[in-house]
């Protein structure tokens, strides 16, 4: 290939590249508008299908940010929080979607119980200090305090909650809820599984009463007592070699041991149920303000 031919090929290549870039700009705007329309109509799967057709290599950095935001937002609406977080985290600081993407991706990650990762992401959010971002500063402080509660870092919550103003509308009610939840969690007393087991060994069901399950405690007391009475009756009437004593004695032993083991477990179940309920409330309170601020 001589120099002239090479030059012609190069000019044609540059021309085609420029044309395709120009076409992709128009095409991307159209696709983005169409995707936004689909998202507004809750057609998230269709929106993702359209977004997947867009070639990342043919779009500008700004457009790539919009693409990642739209993908992340579609996944978020489909409750696919892992995928949502992946795309929302890719949105750069230059984008107008930056803050929304970062806050929502932190929520997505926290929803997946990766609390340290979510906290690190919140720490990395950069805010410009002016009047319009002061509200974002409050929101950031609020979301960090949510992470402190979720990780049971009460000292961190103490520090962060000192900045609560209770006057910024999107978070004012939830700030109070956080403080309430904090008080509940701090005053929650762990009960001893060993003590529960010992109590049920002495009086069947009393360990479950101690753990807070009063209905189960009465049921256990009734069942084990009935089996004990039947075993005692069989012993008195037929002696320890009688088949009825062996049968009822075996069943009584199973119920008795089960009652002790159940009491030990009920303490753990109670604790898990309490923290699960708290976490659910915190996640809900973490989410609602995001909808208020960014929608």
């Amino acid at each position, binding site marked *: 290939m001589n120099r002239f031919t090479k030059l012609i090929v190069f000019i044609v290549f540059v021309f085609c590249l420029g044309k395709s870039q120009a076409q992709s700009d128009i095409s991307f705007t159209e696709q983005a508008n169409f995707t936004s329309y689909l998202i507004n109509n809750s057609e998230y799967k269709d929106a993702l299908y*359209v977004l997947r057709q867009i070639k990342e290599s043919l779009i500008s950095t700004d457009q790539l940010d919009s693409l990642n935001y739209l993908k992340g937002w579609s996944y978020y609406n489909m409750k696919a929080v892992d995928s949502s977080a992946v795309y929302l985290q890719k949105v750069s600081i230059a984008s107008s979607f930056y803050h929304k993407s970062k806050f929502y991706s932190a929520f997505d990650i926290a929803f997946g119980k990766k609390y340290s990762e979510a906290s690190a992401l919140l720490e990395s959010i950069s805010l410009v200090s002016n009047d319009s971002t002061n509200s974002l500063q409050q929101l950031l402080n609020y979301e960090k305090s949510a992470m402190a509660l979720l990780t049971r870092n009460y000292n961190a919550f103490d520090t962060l909650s000192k900045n609560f103003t209770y006057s910024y509308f999107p978070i004012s009610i939830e700030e109070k809820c956080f403080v309430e939840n904090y008080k509940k969690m701090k005053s929650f007393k762990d009960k001893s599984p060993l003590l529960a087991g010992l109590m049920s060994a002495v009086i069947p069901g009393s360990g479950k009463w101690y753990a807070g399950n009063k209905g189960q405690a009465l049921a256990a007391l009734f069942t084990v007592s*009935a089996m004990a*009475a039947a075993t005692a*009756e069989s012993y008195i009437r037929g002696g320890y070699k009688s088949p009825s004593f062996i049968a009822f004695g075996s069943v009584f032993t199973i119920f008795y041991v089960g009652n002790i083991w159940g009491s030990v477990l009920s303490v753990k179940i109670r604790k898990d149920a309490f923290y699960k309920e708290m976490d659910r409330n915190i996640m809900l309170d973490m989410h609602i303000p995001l909808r208020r601020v960014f929608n």
Partner: protein
Amino acid sequence: MADSLFEKQQYYAAAIEYERLGFTANNNNEKTEAFIKKSNCLNLIGKYEDAARCMGRVNYNNLPDTLIYKAKYQYALSAYLAKDFGNAESQLLQMQFFVPDSTITYTALPLFCLILNEQQKWADAKIKLMDYVRLSPSPQAKKDSIYKEIELLYATKSIPKMKSLKKAQRLSYILPGTGQMYAGYFWEGAASAAIQLAALSLTAYCVYVHYYVAAFVGGYSIFSKFYLGGINRLEYLVGKTNYERSRKFNDIAKEKTIGLQEKLD
């Protein structure tokens, strides 16, 4: 582009393009047509709920009667395929309300019949099918033979007899196991009755030999578990029998209804 994708049987891609046509449409008629086509594509790939949801987005203001008919029919069909029979019936009722001209809407009557069949409203389904034949432009002789076929299909002896849950429960309260037998599960009822009889015998025997606590703990507790458990299970058994019976009839009725439609066409 959407139509060419449809012809190539790339139905999902076509559905997206029809959606795009709806997005860029200049008026509500074009938009509605695009939604109908999108819904059709989604039905063809088994996404019936998405298809019905798509039709739920149609704005019926100022649409011509023929388009209201097409949109409501498509909505009812998608809802029927998605097994949302209540919604499907509601769409057809709305269609009849908004489009009073039965010469336009009568072709929806076979679908109406199928929807009513699924809701076990067989008497109403028969009326809809009869109306369809009456309103069709076919010759009277052909219609008469089809009337006979419909009468035969919906004859009293052909309509499935549904089991009553209350009756089954009453039977089992009085005589354990008979509720299951009534629901069509004879051997299950017999086994349940035998176990309860054995438990009661054990209770009586324990009382006879003065093992009073054992009589209560061993015999009576087993009896009460099977007695109450058997009654609770009747809800499932009666529901299953009724479902199987109606399914069997509805499958036959569906084939015959489609057959009748073809005969009239």
